[in-house]
């Protein structure tokens, strides 16, 4: 993508009177890090980037914004939020519209067709992070890693993130402004991660998740980063009644992780953010993709494609399949 064009467009949008700020990606403080940037004016747009390191799904900020009580006499700032989205991120926006979590007129969606992101952990493992900010760029058949002035060409297969291997929608499904031409879609890989867990017998599967959930520290980064986990009153925070105890042990951790996965069935748009941010490396993507697969296979439904669709969990048709219900 043409970076000049991106910054020019972003500057125009950020300068609009009806826009509060634009949320995009900017270079982080070191290594491969990319930070979310909140751009309030045209000048700020010069910081923005779009590269294979922009894995973060910024759609979460649409619902994460805190609405504080206003001092008497002060009017609320009702201006729009502009948001840069990749294909997967745009599905979160579409799903939020389905659920009426946001109003269409309150967002300006800037679509970035996405050739696929690198896996940040894999990248840092193969090409250790440097003190100075490093860059990764797309080439026709892979990536170039630029660190400490040195360029290394890397094949696409070597570094492509798992969520991108599985991706079916690299082009934004919804946008007000599209930056550049749509990318050519690719044949999504078979989801080996989910297959592997599916193929385990019940005991093995239990042992597998027991090990994973035992590592959970309950930091709730998965919940907070998730663009579709936006309940004002989350059951995990409830104390009266307490649905999930504060104790950190396998039982409570399982209750938490399973509750979250079930609440996302038919809603998760597979952006993979939960798994990326988990400090305990729990393969949350497998859990959510398994439920997405069930919903896709059994009901032929995929969330976040059509902002006009009926919400999956909140709709009922007399001819809904039920042959798998015990």
């Amino acid at each position, binding site marked *: 993508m043409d970076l000049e064009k991106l910054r020019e467009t972003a500057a125009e949008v950020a300068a609009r009177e009806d826009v509060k700020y634009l949320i995009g990606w900017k270079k982080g403080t*070191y290594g491969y890090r990319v*930070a979310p940037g909140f751009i309030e004016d045209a000048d700020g747009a010069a910081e923005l980037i779009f590269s294979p390191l922009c894995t973060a799904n910024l759609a979460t900020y649409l619902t994460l914004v805190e609405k504080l009580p206003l001092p008497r006499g002060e009017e609320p700032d009702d201006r729009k939020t502009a948001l840069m989205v990749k294909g997967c991120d745009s599905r979160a926006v579409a799903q939020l519209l389905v659920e009426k979590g946001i109003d269409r007129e309150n967002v300006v969606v800037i679509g970035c067709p996405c050739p696929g992101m690198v896996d940040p952990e894999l990248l840092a493992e193969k090409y250790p992070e440097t003190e100075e900010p490093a860059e990764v760029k797309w080439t026709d058949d892979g990536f170039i890693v630029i660190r400490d002035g040195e360029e290394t060409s890397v094949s696409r297969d070597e570094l492509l993130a798992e969520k991108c291997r599985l991706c079916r929608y690299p082009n934004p499904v919804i946008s007000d402004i599209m930056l550049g031409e749509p990318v050519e879609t690719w044949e999504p890989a078979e989801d080996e991660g989910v297959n592997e867990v599916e193929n385990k017998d019940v005991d093995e599967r239990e042992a597998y998740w027991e090990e*994973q959930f035992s590592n959970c*520290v309950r*930091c709730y*980064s998965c919940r*907070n980063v998730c663009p579709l986990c936006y309940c004002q009153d989350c059951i995990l925070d409830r104390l009266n009644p*307490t649905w999930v105890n504060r*104790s950190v042990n396998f039982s409570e951790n399982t209750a938490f992780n399973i509750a979250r996965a079930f609440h996302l069935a038919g809603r998760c748009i597979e952006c993979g953010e939960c798994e990326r*941010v988990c400090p305990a490396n729990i393969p949350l993507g497998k859990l959510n993709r398994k439920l997405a697969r069930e919903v896709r296979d059994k009901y032929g439904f995929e969330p976040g494609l059509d902002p006009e669709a009926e919400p999956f969990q909140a709709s009922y048709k007399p001819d809904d399949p039920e042959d798998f219900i015990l």
Partner: protein
Amino acid sequence: MSAMLLNKEKWPDFVGRLTGKKLWAPQAGGDGMRFAPVAEGEVPALDYGNTRVPPKQAVFPQTETLFRFQVDGEKVEEPKLEEEAVLLGVRPCDARAMVIVDKLFSWDEDDPYYLKRRELVTLVGLACTEPGLNCFCTSVGGGPASTEGLDLVMIDLGENYLLEAITEKGQALLAETEDLLEEAKDDVAEQKEKIINESEQKIKRSVNTEDIPGGLPGLWEDPLWQRVSASCLGCGTCTFLCPTCHCFDIQDETEGFDSRRCRSWDSCMFAEYTLHTSGHNPRPSRRERTRNRINHKYNYYVDKFDVIACVGCGRCINLCPVNIDIVDILKQVEEAL
């Protein structure tokens, strides 16, 4: 007998001698390196950087049952804390963190649970020879070979570990394993100094923290807090993985007629942390919560205990999902002064 050599080939024997005590060491798991109890007969390797979760969990478990009780009875049971523990391969920053947290837990009221565990633990440290990318211990009063809080320190000399006892507990450990050790030669001091110097040189990140504690109160309403917290998700990664964060919440939990009172780590980055019963929240947004995190470490704690409650381990930087970088924040604070 304060400086001894342990040939690395004898490391398994050394570990074998520590039986009878609960042994903790960094171990690889699905979640990366973490301190975990060592199974009988296992020999932990020490070639690791920093664990993802700090060893504070050995003295301040994430969840601790204070006592058990029955809803319809009068029986109250307190778990007994008697088990001696040895933590192997503690990094100097994490040991310093315990000394810092000790001050809080023995301040107005002694915390019997924490202090008992601290009394029963022996810390065997490992000086850092390969500091991580985000290590900045030298900016906050520590160093890659700091011995503060350690009972015994090990320094990797290549073929051997140099073992130096810092406390009586450390001396005792050396005495117990005497037959495995050799007396260190005179040139070892020089070798050690060289290794420590080299290690210090490898620490890339730094910030001048001198004026920060005194300057923070004046920056209470500074726009920098909005700037640095705009992208914060409000998760507990930075605080739960911090070796000096020590906040907890106490809840009664019930299963049938059995109940327990337990305390679990809490995080000042959570919205419910300061939420009042009335619904009022004195730290209503992530701006105030981020400001509190920095002020607690670099202002209030210094005011009360004369030490910065940050040891520069870099975990919060490494693992923040949105690149909120405490060194960067401190630099912005310094600039705003």
